[in-house]
């Protein structure tokens, strides 16, 4: 073998149209090593893995630049099947298991061991009988190697989530000639003890000579499990480190980094903290992919509170839960008044408005006019913009036109007029329509969820300025939830970081990058620093 690396990815650049998602990224993995791949959402981790597996999405969008070497040879990986043949395995984040099949069948799926029978001799190999005995023996071996003593004929349906993860790993190990295994956020759905077990299994696998790529955002697991680390940031290689030569603070810093200048500049002011506007206690929200678990948070009147965190960690669950858009439990008080949780109508009536993160899905009636969109909530909740005509309560067209035109001017909505369909507007203008609808309710409290997602930089600035103006001029209390830390830092008074559905810490916007990085991976910066200091003292 000409090289010490089992996998080398050299100078990978990938563009989707105009958009460069990976630029000049390299990584190298040795056999028997656990290599962590670290980065925020959108840093380019999944694109890099898609390239490694030859996913159709890569080939369909013009391929990529750079080289992928396996054992030092140029590996032209054409498809996921090709990747499997070449000895690359993947443990998926969403389990790719057939629930109605047994563990054995799942492990040997599409690689069944068969023996010929009468029909297969005539009609070909596809009709051969399954050799259950040798299949179950193989499955047993693979299960043993991941430390699972469950019966191999159990059905996958109804297994605990952690077990499924191990079955998935067992399936990959069972593949002959596997030399590289990719674990895509394997611990995200596991309990702490399961996660520990998983890491030890990973280490066992690595000891047997298989290289492991470990994708995660949990810094402590990285420190515990990996041998070396590649950190991506904004599609670029931020750094490559030996685990023994780095520490968790440096990793956090490298992962977050400074992303350009702040979007808008604001004068510093003291954080309002006189009255609690919104008191959230033990909030649990069952929002798919964004669970909130026992979160407690106070929002002060007159402040802009940012809520940040990585995708899927529950930050979106907070506004959606308070507004009752998903099943939720807990106590919520608005200006001291208890709010019935899970009742959207009650929340709106109490004076909370929300601009949803899902503009097209939840935020707008795409097939209706701008004016109808703007007045909708005010009409339905407060009964405004209506007039009586005999037994009918009808829309008051002239009032509606008036407020719509005013909003279009105030928020600078670029459109042909108030009757244009909302679906034909650009993303930024759609967002402004959503904000206009919230404002029509004259809310005391405003949730803004991902206000700048998918809109261009100019519109982004306008939207943020609008929010600041509402806060400063009208004294509106605003909670802004965003994945863009930079955006939160530029307009928020305080920033709450959420990880795994829990509040990790509330940081001032000028806190160092490392603190945000630590908080996003679920470690309270203060605790870490104290622990670190204590460690140094000893």
């Amino acid at each position: 073998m000409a090289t010490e690396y089992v996998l080398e990815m050299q100078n990978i650049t990938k563009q989707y149209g105009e958009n460069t998602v990976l630029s000049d990224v390299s990584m190298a993995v040795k056999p028997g090593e656990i290599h962590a791949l670290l980065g925020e959402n959108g840093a380019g981790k999944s694109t890099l893995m898609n390239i490694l597996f030859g996913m159709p999405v890569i080939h369909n969008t013009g391929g990529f630049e750079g080289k992928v070497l396996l054992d030092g040879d140029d590996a032209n990986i054409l498809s996921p099947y090709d990747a499997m043949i070449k000895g690359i395995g993947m443990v998926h984040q969403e389990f790719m298991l057939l629930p109605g099949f047994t563990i054995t069948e799942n492990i040997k799926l599409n690689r069944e061991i068969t023996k010929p029978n009468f029909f297969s001799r005539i009609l070909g190999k596809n009709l051969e009988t399954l050799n259950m005995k040798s299949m179950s023996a193989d499955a047993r071996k693979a299960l043993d190697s991941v430390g699972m003593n469950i019966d191999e004929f159990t059905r996958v349906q109804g297994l605990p989530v952690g077990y499924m993860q191990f079955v998935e790993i067992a399936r990959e190990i069972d593949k002959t000639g596997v030399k590289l295994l990719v674990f895509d956020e394997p611990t995200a759905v596991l309990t702490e003890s399961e996660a520990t077990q998983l890491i030890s299994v990973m280490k066992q696998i690595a000891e047997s000579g298989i290289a492991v790529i470990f994708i995660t955002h949990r810094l402590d697991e990285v420190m515990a499990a990996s041998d070396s680390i590649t950190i991506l940031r904004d599609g670029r290689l931020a750094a490559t480190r030996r685990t023994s030569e780095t520490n968790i603070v440096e990793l956090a810093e490298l992962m977050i980094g400074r992303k350009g200048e702040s979007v808008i500049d604001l004068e510093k002011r003291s954080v309002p903290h006189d009255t609690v506007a919104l008191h959230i206690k033990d909030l649990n929200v069952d929002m798919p992919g964004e669970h909130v678990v026992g979160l407690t948070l106070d929002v002060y009147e007159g402040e802009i509170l940012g809520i940040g965190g990585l995708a899927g960690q529950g930050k979106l669950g907070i506004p959606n839960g308070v507004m009752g858009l998903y099943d939720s439990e807990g106590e919520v008080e608005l200006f001291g008044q208890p709010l019935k949780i899970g009742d959207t109508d009650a929340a709106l009536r109490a004076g909370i408005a929300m601009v949803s993160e899902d503009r097209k899905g939840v935020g707008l009636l795409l097939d209706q006019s701008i004016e109808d969109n703007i007045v909708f909530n005010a009409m339905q909740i407060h009964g405004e913009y209506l007039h009586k005509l005999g037994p009918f309560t009808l829309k008051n067209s002239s009032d509606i036109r008036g407020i719509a035109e005013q909003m279009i001017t105030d928020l600078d909505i670029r459109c042909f007029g108030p009757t244009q369909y909302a679906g034909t507007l650009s993303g930024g203008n759609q967002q402004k329509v959503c904000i206009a609808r919230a404002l029509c309710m004259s809310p005391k409290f405003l949730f803004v969820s991902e206000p700048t997602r998918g809109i261009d930089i100019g519109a982004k600035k306008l939207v943020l300025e609008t929010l600041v103006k509402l806060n400063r001029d009208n004294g509106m209390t605003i909670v802004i939830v965003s994945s863009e830390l930079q955006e939160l830092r530029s307009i928020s008074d305080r920033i709450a970081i959420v990880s795994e559905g829990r509040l990790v810490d509330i940081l001032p916007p000028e806190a160092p990058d490392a603190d945000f990085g630590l908080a996003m991976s679920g470690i309270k910066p203060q605790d870490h620093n104290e622990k670190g200091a204590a460690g140094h003292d000893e």
Partner: protein
Amino acid sequence: MTNNKWRRLLAIVLCAAAVLLLVTGIIELPRRTGRAGQDVLDDARIQALLSVTGESVVESYVAIAKKEAQERVRAGGGSMNDIREAVEKAEQETREKYTGESTDLSQIDTASLRAATNAYMNALDEYGSLETAARAQYIEEHYAEAQAALEEKHRAMLEAGQEIPENDAVVVDMSGFVPTPEMLAAEAAADNAYLAVGDAISLIYPVLDKDSVMTLKDSVRGMLYQSDDDFSSQFDRYVEQGRAKRTFSAYLLRHADDLIYTAIALLVAAALLLYSEWLISKLGIPRVIIGLFFIILCFMTLLYDLSLPTLLSNTVVRMGMNAVMVLAIVPGIQCGISLNLGLPIGLVAGLLGGLMTIEFGIPGWGGFLFAILVGVVIAAVCGYLYAQLLNRLKGEEMSVTTYVGFSVVSLMCIAWLVLPFTSLKLRWPLGTGLRNTIGLDSGNFRHILNDWGAFNIGSFYVPTGLLLFMALCCFLVWLFSRSKTGVAMQAVGNNPRFAEAAGLNVNKMRVIGTMLSTVLGAVGILVYSQSYGFMQLYTAPRQMGFIAASAILIGGASTSRCKISHVLIGTFLFQGVLTLGMPVANVLVPGSTISETLRILISNGIILYALTKSGGASRA
């Protein structure tokens, strides 16, 4: 680009052709009533007259020849066999000699015949108009009597357990009609005029004697004159009888109106060609195709000399009778259950209301309103239950509504057999169960909307009450769609998650929409029945949901968006194509059921097309 150029070139060619035809037509058309038209008609008439009489001339010659031959052989002392042979031979020879010998007008002096014929025509005309007036008066006087008689007959038929035929219209028995003195005088004058014609014919065919001329009187009269004759029908009849070669100028005159129609059709075609892209983007392909089809049918009815105003009037009536049922689809689409193919629930409820009116014998408007009231109540209850089902099966509305529709029709097939109605109008007199079709009469609500304030413009019948009722229903639905609840309901249909985020109860809104749709269905079937004059039970309501759904889709609605205008446009186009299609299809392929095939093809094809579109982007 070249495609565009070709299109423009073709349009110009079409326009040029159209202008040519139009000018010719416009020049020729007024000439019909002028000197030229008179001459053409006269020529054709004389030709036909001579041809008809010529046939009897041949017969006369044959008779003479046969007689001569018989006498000749007998004189020669031949046997019976010889006589028969000789007679046959003579007949054959004579026939060959005279048949096929087209009368050449230029060879014969027809001046006296012309004058006599024209005088006879005038006399006939006078008699005809007198007779028409007298008959109309007679019908008017005896109409009520005839209607009562018909209803009496129907009652008797019902008691005898017979089915009332669906096309049984009131016919005034004319056997009691006695010609008026004026008519008799006019007829005598006409007969006198015929004598002059007969003399003139005898001059040309000396072989025809007075008696044979008199035997020809009826056929000559029938050929020359028929009531409601116009230029085209006279000319066509003469040409058919005359077997003469048609001159180009006569032909041009005859088809002057067709030239104008064709010219307009070409102009329309050229305009469509030029604006095809704009039209397709604005209206969508199916509406353009159906619209084109409708326009083509209009022109075809003109070319085949069918009465376009009558057919359009029928279209309007059928639009009125179907519109409320189509309107019933609107709340369904608005509240997000897509096409309410479970409409038969509402239809059956309406039918029950109608049946109860007849059972209790409530007459006139009261009966109609009672039927609507009962229908609406039943529909509201059933619609509520139906909506609960739909709320439990979100996302599968299309198949759920379809199967609910089928199931309800089948279930009611049993119910119609066991429901305890006792009226003889409803029941089979023997055995159990309700009749297949239940005829409405003036004692019930037959044509109660159609005839309210109805009037005629020429042959265009305007069913004022029906149209007003349709407009009222449309207005109410439009008003509802602008109300607070209506707006909320549309938001639920448009985007349920948006509605939830606005604190709306999505299920409640869907219940409201579904109930409204079902209730409108009940009203719709009653409007339909009163106009049709019959209530159809058993499997008849099964197809109606599909017809209503495809009508609104033709109008431009999608499975998630619709407006009142879609209802009106769609119903008009759909019913128009069917109404005009039937007579045209019968001319093209006589005795076929192609029109029915067409209806099924269009209604199901349109639904399929709409389904392919519904999965696409939500922006229209």
